[in-house]
């Protein structure tokens, strides 16, 4: 059965302090008074009621918002209004480039989106689904925000220093600032190091103890999905930080035979999708008595291609702009 899915796009302005670059010699300091634009997608269906409690999905590091499309489609089909966004200074359609990303910019982006969604839906009760590095950001936000009703994390990072060591093969956080290379590669994409690593110290992101501390103050339910073959995150550390046996509203889900990129195993991704749909619907639609609707393969594929094409046409436009810019500089130089 084909479900009528509607995708809407919004611009959310973000002028929170966390979006600044770190002032360093040779670097430009951003003027925080100029708001920057975060692109937000809302996916809904005719099952979604005006009073429906919303959920925000934040994608993993380096991933644009279309990549959580099948989860968004399944939630929307079941009556949950779903919001996704691209963080500032990140992959995707929002302002800035990934080379300038810091976790604090990620936090400011997430906070701006949660506040905006909460406001649209009359206050609190926003659900949050967060993946990988963004989950670390989510733990911090949930520990202070009053707008978030529950949190689902997938392969969520809890100990950044250790994870980055596994990813980069080097602990750059032990380097002196002047020793840092200008950029380091993540999946062969350059990330500027000065802002990224300075932010870790300035805002205390690096250690597991800080995550444990933040988790201590979280009272909303947490469901944490762990990939048992995660090459970047120590499974026992997630269990230690979440500590489900000591909290009656926390559960860990262990996905067997999955790596960090658990979505690569499409069959496991399917079980993840079903479980998260049930969890989210349980919180947002507690009175629902219908059976779970599952969007068919072909419709998910069509929706995914549609969303990828939106992202792609944005990337193409940006590239054309860059090219024009390059050419005009060359012309000036030649003349």
């Amino acid at each position, binding site marked *: 059965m084909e479900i009528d899915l509607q995708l809407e796009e919004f611009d959310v302005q973000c002028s929170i302090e966390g979006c600044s670059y770190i002032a360093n010699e040779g670097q430009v300091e951003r003027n925080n008074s100029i708001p920057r634009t975060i692109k937000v997608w809302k996916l809904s269906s005719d099952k979604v009621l005006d009073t429906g409690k919303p959920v925000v999905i934040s994608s993993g590091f380096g991933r644009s918002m279309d990549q959580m499309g099948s989860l968004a489609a399944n939630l929307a089909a079941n009556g949950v209004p779903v919001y996704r966004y691209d963080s500032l200074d990140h*992959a995707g359609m929002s302002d800035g480039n990934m080379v300038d990303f810091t976790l604090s910019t990620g936090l400011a982006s997430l906070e701006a989106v949660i506040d905006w969604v909460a406001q649209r839906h009359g206050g609190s009760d926003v659900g949050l689904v967060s993946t990988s590095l963004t989950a670390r950001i989510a733990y911090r936000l949930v520990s202070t925000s009053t707008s978030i009703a529950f949190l689902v994390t997938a392969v969520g990072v809890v100990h950044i220093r250790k994870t980055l060591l596994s990813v980069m093969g080097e602990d750059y956080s032990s380097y002196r600032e002047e020793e840092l290379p200008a950029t380091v590669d993540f*999946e*062969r*994409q350059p990330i500027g190091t000065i802002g990224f690593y300075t932010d870790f110290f300035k805002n205390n992101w690096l250690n597991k103890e800080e995550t444990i501390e933040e988790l201590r103050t979280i009272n909303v339910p947490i469901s944490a*999905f762990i990939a048992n073959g995660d090459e970047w995150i120590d499974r026992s550390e997630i269990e230690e930080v979440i500590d*489900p*046996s000591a909290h*009656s509203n*926390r*559960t*860990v*889900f*262990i*996905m*067997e*035979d*999955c790596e960090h990129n658990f979505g*690569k*195993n*499409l*069959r*496991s991704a*399917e*079980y*993840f999708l079903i*479980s998260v749909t049930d969890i989210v619907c349980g919180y947002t639609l507690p009175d629902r008595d219908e059976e779970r609707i599952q969007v*068919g*393969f*072909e419709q998910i*594929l*069509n929706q*995914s*291609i549609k969303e*990828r094409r939106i992202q*792609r046409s944005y*990337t193409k436009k940006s*590239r054309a702009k860059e*090219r024009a810019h390059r050419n005009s500089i060359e012309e000036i130089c030649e003349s």
Partner: protein
Amino acid sequence: MEERKDKVIIESEEIDTIIFSGEKVWRHTKEEQEAIREKMVREAFLYHVDSCGEYRDYVGRKIDNLSVDLSSIALSDIPLIPTSAYKKNTLLSVGEPDVAKWCLSSGTNGMRSRVPRDKTSLDRLIGSLDAGSELINHYYEHEVEVLNLGPDKYEAGDIWFSYVMSLIETLYPTTCFINEGTFLIDDALAELELLEQESSHVMISSPPFLVMELIKSLKSKGRKFNFGHRLTIITAGGWKKRSGEAVPRDTLVSLCRDYLGIEGDDQFRDVFNQVELNTVIFECSEGNKHLPPWVAAFARSPVDLQALPEGEEGLMSFLDASANSYPCFYVGDDLGIVEHKDCACGVSSKTISIKRRVQTRDTRGCATSIMTEAT
């Protein structure tokens, strides 16, 4: 009320762990591959005998007494369905509502094969694309630009070959150049002009005759590109209706060197698939089509369909454990060779090489007679 659990285990099926393991698919030892193949294909056989009434009846006719221990049957003795039977029969191992797509062969004459695929089968097919593309190279999504000279998913409809090619858009940023059946050759050339200036790796995914059209157009315009190592051409589907214009692979590769500026033969790869097969089989840098461990292939005598020793040419048959919604144990119309190779690309596995289609009446007749038995 359900008891709250603080820990829930989400299990993965063994075959999925293997299919979705990316480049690790190609790292199993010869013994491990054989063990996986024996287990997965035999399990799939027992499952389909159990789940597909038509196949169970057919197996019953081929093996006199179904109560014999089917679980110890040699893989080469698993009863094969002739591809023609997929045209006349509905071979279905799941409930009809679970069929996500009825896939049609692109046959030019006569009836078409109709193969029902559920989500599990389609997911696994995409897994085979992902694993197979590792034989080309490991690219992150942001590093690649694909030009699909065939139709996109919407234009492809239910035609299997075009549909499979269009799935590449789910893996990499892709632009398609067929609009309402017309090849937008000037748009493709304009895109290549742009991409020549960029740094991303370019993949052209296309049936061979459209690569030839691209070359012809470049020739007539007197334009040559110089992509160097930055371009890979992936062909699939053969020449089909355009077989009259077919040029040998070496000629096409050499034209791609001249007009697109590729530097090595390994930048030209062919992939093999047919509507009945649920796995896409890729070529490595040495031009060998490596068989993943969940598929068994045998070349067979056209006379009695007995499996031939490795290296001998015969009718190609496949037993693919990744198909969940239909029994994928078939013998087709292609003549080819199956043999194990310790390949210079670093992969050591069974390989297939397709030589030609069966043309003679006798061999066709062989397949037809089995079809009659199956119907």
